[in-house]
């Protein structure tokens, strides 16, 4: 692809984006001559260049669109239908451009459909007498060469127009600035002829004067009013630089900064230096250079907003709502890397506001609000951060529904929810899959995807907040750092090494010792009392698996109180040094899988330190990996077992007020359905769920499906099948150590356990699945051969839970409760092909079992093994690798286990072949 074509592609892409936005503005303000002219010029440029480059398809389309726009100029009212048609044409142009970019040639195909529609639209009006005429007048207005030379100053026409209107003219009226335009602009619609004649006039006359000045200045041509000269000249003095060049510059400057830091460090140690002064100068120059290069990476946030007017327009048509999009501060600049990350979240949020935030027009009128809803986007700088607000004047969040849903989903207890402030409650919408709408219908609601938005923003160290007022609207506030390349970080020591902690996540530092401020333990999990609140603590050394000095460091050190999202936690470190502006360097591809690090950097003294990722730490804190690690198993094995066998259970009422529970990991969704929607087919209850029929099975014979009101369901699914378990009421979600006390005599129950002081039956899902689908457990998927799997787990619960899962996937299953039993079974049963074992078992662990197998006779030594583990840590991975364990799967990850097994058998088959 030659340079010319590449430049054309970049430029046309930008033009089309501008036209998109402008067209939407034009539709709302059809009398605005400026906008129309701008659109016209851009499309015309594209057309002209296409002709020049020999791209007939693009040219024909652009021409047809231009023709129709020419009719607008001549006074054809810009209807929604015609604007839609032009927008469609623009989409087609973009498609062709994308193809062109990919292949280097214009794709074949026909655009007759659009072209003829455009022509019909252009002709199908009272003034259709001269269909070809409107296409021509514009050409003399701004002939090709002029337009093309104007490239860098695209906006100048617009600016010019604005300047015209704003400039104090001979008349007192703003509109009357230069006579020809004053006459044309407001009257343009009724007087098309006069307009097309007079429009070029002011432009040309305006050009005369500054043209000389401009030639002298920049050697470029352009039109501008005297007042606009400097701005236009500046515009014309921009050049395109490839992003790679800038990135490279940025890297070099970063390295320069590091070198300077090193020099300064050295200078600090040598008193007598004569090079202090030049070094100072170097320091200043470097700082300025860094600033300068950072600036080149800055882009106005408007670039990320460009597509939004179109999005809102399309949505407003689709939803039948009238929506105004107001954008303030589009010129606010931020780093292009940041811009890329927030682009999609912003679009998503604006969509959300339009879709769910704003009420329908009828509702708005009924509520006494203006019929047109408004979405306001604002961006401004605030300290070292940039703040973006997305506000709608809709109905506000339904906080009551969110509270209810939060309790239902087990995110918080009723008491907690009642205590929470509205702002805290609103934040629940950022939880994955949280949707208040789903309680009633299966249509997705606000909240779907908000977790993704939040994650995206948090990955760049940003914060997101919501303020909502019932009936008045919702405002999302996003605060993001200006740049990602350089951050302020706290340098700390943990164990032997130093680490950098990004300061955005740090709230405060607390010194801890054996005295008043000390770290206490609950079942091995360290916590700190901080202003009458308990703060979970993780030790950085423990987190990074360098546990050697674990116990003593927790006696004295510093707790870095950090906040990520709603999560507040303390990171225990041994020493805190200072803060430093560090240049973030990405981790090597070989190390990028370690969630604990966000990158690395070189400190002033030349040492490389790792940057700890607060998000990664937060995830580890939540998983409690560290709490049960190290100390617990050092103390006693039993504690270890306790920590490992904690299970999250969904508790519900099922039949005669009794409490039942099922592992939450098996549950796909919780639903509340309207009883009227339950249908009876062949004696079975069914409901239409997500476009399919889903059988409903009562959790207890004593439960009957209600005939009115709503019915609570627990949905289980496997592949594309789903089953609704009918329950009386969903009570709670508890995370407790599971001790199944009485092995029940019923096939629908695994046994019962005491949960939160209540006797609770644990139901056996394997009993219910075949009730919904006769063939669920028959393993239709792999009828040809039944691989025999040995499942080793000390917990009867897991054996009972996984056996049906494996059977359903088409495996024959034998179980063993300990490593010894497993070895016996393996020796006596030669058909076993795969071993699935829990790695953390009391007594001989899964690792011991595998080690024993590897030492045994060749048949056992070669058996593939899949390890189940509560926490996949680096050392587990390492041990697994040494023992040639084929795969590690998290304990509750049924899908992962099945796919690991499938992968194994695929391998064996290919080996045999």
């Amino acid at each position, binding site marked *: 692809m030659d340079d010319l074509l590449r430049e054309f592609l970049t430029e046309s892409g930008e033009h089309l984006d501008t036209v998109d936005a402008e067209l939407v503005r034009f539709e709302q303000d059809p009398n605005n001559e400026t906008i129309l002219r701008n659109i016209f010029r851009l499309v015309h440029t594209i057309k002209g260049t296409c002709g020049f480059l020999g791209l007939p398809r693009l040219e024909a389309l652009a021409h047809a669109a231009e023709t129709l726009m020419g009719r607008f100029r001549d006074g054809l009212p810009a209807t929604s239908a015609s604007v839609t048609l032009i927008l469609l044409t623009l989409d087609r142009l973009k498609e062709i451009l994308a193809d062109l970019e990919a292949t280097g040639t214009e794709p074949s195909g026909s655009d007759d459909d659009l072209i003829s529609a455009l022509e019909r639209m252009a002709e199908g009006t009272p003034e259709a007498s001269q269909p070809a005429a409107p296409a021509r007048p514009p050409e003399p207005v701004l002939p090709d060469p002029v337009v093309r030379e104007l490239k860098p100053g695209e906006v100048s026409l617009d600016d010019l127009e604005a300047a015209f209107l704003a400039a104090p003219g001979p008349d007192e009226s703003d509109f009357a600035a230069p006579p020809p335009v004053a006459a044309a602009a407001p009257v343009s619609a009724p007087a098309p002829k006069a307009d097309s004649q007079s429009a070029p006039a002011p432009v040309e006359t305006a050009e005369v004067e500054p043209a000389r000045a401009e030639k002298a200045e920049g050697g470029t041509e352009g039109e501008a009013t005297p007042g606009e000269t400097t701005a236009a000249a500046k515009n014309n003095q921009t050049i395109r630089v490839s992003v790679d060049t800038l990135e490279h510059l940025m890297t070099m400057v970063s390295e320069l900064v590091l070198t300077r830091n090193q020099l300064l460090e050295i200078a600090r140690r040598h008193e007598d230096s004569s090079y202090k002064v030049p070094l100072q100068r170097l320091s200043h120059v470097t700082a300025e250079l860094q600033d300068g290069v950072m600036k080149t990476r800055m882009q106005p946030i408007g670039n990320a907003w460009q597509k939004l007017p179109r999005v809102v327009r399309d949505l407003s048509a689709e939803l039948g709502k009238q929506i105004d999009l107001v954008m303030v501060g589009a010129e606010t600049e931020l780093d292009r890397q940041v811009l890329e990350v927030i682009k999609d979240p912003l679009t998503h949020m604006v969509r959300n506001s339009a879709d769910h935030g704003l009420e329908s027009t009828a509702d708005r009128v009924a509520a006494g609000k203006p019929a047109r809803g408004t979405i306001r986007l604002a961006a401004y700088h605030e300290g070292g951060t940039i703040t973006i607000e997305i506000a709608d004047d809709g109905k506000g969040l339904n906080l009551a529904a969110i509270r209810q849903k939060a309790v239902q989903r087990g995110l918080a207890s009723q008491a907690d929810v009642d205590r929470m402030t509205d702002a805290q409650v609103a934040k629940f919408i950022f939880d994955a899959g949280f949707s208040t709408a789903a309680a009633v219908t299966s249509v997705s609601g606000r909240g779907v995807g908000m977790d993704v938005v939040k994650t995206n923003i948090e990955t760049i160290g940003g914060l997101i907040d919501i303020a909502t007022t019932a009936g008045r609207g919702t405002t999302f506030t996003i605060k993001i750092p200006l740049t990602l390349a350089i951050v302020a970080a706290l340098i700390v020591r943990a164990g032997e090494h130093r680490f950098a902690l990004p300061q955005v996540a740090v709230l405060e530092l607390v010194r801890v010792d054996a005295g008043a401020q000390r770290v206490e333990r609950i079942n091995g999990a360290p916590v700190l009392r901080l202003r009458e609140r308990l703060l979970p603590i993780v030790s950085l050394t423990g987190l990074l698996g360098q546990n050697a000095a674990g116990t003593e460091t927790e006696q004295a050190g510093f707790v870095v109180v950090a906040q990520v999202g709603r999560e507040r936690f303390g990171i225990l470190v041994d020493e805190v040094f200072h803060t430093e502006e560090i240049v973030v360097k990405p981790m*090597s*591809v*070989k*190390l990028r899988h*370690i969630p604990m690090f966000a990158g*690395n950097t*070189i400190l002033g003294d030349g*040492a*490389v*330190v790792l940057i700890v990722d607060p998000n990664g730490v937060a995830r580890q804190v939540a998983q409690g990996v560290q709490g049960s690690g190290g100390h617990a198993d050092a103390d006693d094995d039993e504690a270890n077992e306790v920590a490992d066998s904690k299970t999250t259970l969904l508790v519900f009422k099922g039949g005669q007020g009794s409490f039942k529970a099922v592992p939450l990991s098996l549950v796909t969704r919780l639903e509340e359905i309207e009883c009227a929607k339950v249908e009876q087919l062949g004696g079975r209850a069914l409901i239409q769920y997500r476009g399919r029929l889903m059988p409903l099975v009562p959790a207890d014979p004593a439960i009957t499906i209600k005939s009115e009101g709503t019915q609570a369901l627990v949905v289980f699914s496997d592949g594309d099948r789903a089953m609704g378990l009918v329950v009386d009421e969903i009570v709670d979600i508890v995370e407790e150590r599971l001790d199944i006390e009485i092995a029940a005599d019923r096939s629908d129950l695994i046994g019962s356990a005491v949960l939160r002081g209540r006797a609770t039956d644990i139901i056996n899902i394997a009993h219910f699945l075949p009730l919904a689908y006769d063939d669920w457990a028959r393993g239709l998927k792999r009828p040809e051969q039944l691989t025999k799997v040995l499942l080793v787990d000390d917990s009867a619960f897991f054996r009972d839970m996984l056996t049906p899962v494996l059977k359903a996937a088409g495996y024959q299953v034998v179980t063993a409760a300990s490593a010894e039993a497993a070895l016996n079974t393996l020796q006596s049963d030669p058909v076993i092909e795969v071993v699935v074992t829990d790695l953390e078992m009391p007594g001989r662990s899964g690792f011991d079992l595998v080690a024993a197998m590897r030492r045994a006779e060749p048949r056992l030594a070669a058996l593939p093994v899949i390890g189940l583990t509560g926490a996949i840590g680096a050392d587990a991975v390492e041990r697994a690798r040494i023992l040639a364990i084929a795969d590690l799967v998290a304990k509750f990850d049924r899908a992962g286990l099945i796919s690991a097994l499938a992968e194994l058998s695929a391998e064996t088959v290919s080996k045999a072949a």
Partner: protein
Amino acid sequence: MQAANANATGAQANGATTNGVETGATDDFVTVFVGETLFGLAIERVHDVFVPSGVTPVPLAPAEIVGLLNLRGRVVTAMSLRRRLGLPDAPDEADGSKANPKMAIGLEQAGETFALVVDGVGEVLKLGADSREAVPINLDPRFRNLAICVHRLDGRLLVILDVDALLGFTPAGAKAA
């Protein structure tokens, strides 16, 4: 095998000497040793030879990775050739976890710089096809997967390593994480 490239660019093999005569198609190799074994690396791939210092270990990293180090303002991932070949760490460092490598070779792959930590660096050899042999099949698979060929030298053998295969390992924890 790459074509002969006698005046390879980017080769800054400090302290290494070039010998050999221009006879037909030859390739240049930087020789390094690990224990008693001599290895060769294509000279076009070698950017630097340096003494690694100030290595920052990376917790939770794959065993092959010794840590990160600062090479003239660039952060470089240091990898131990010993560990990569499944050999134990050198005796003087086997006791503690902190490795104190003697020499490192700067290699580049996909725009990233790696430091291959070896026991020592020898001279640059110019070798022709006449001394080249296929990799013996009875070699340890870890060696076999990383070696391209073997050259018969006077009194010893030179195993030519495939730089891409050497750097091509996937992080062990990636799948599980």
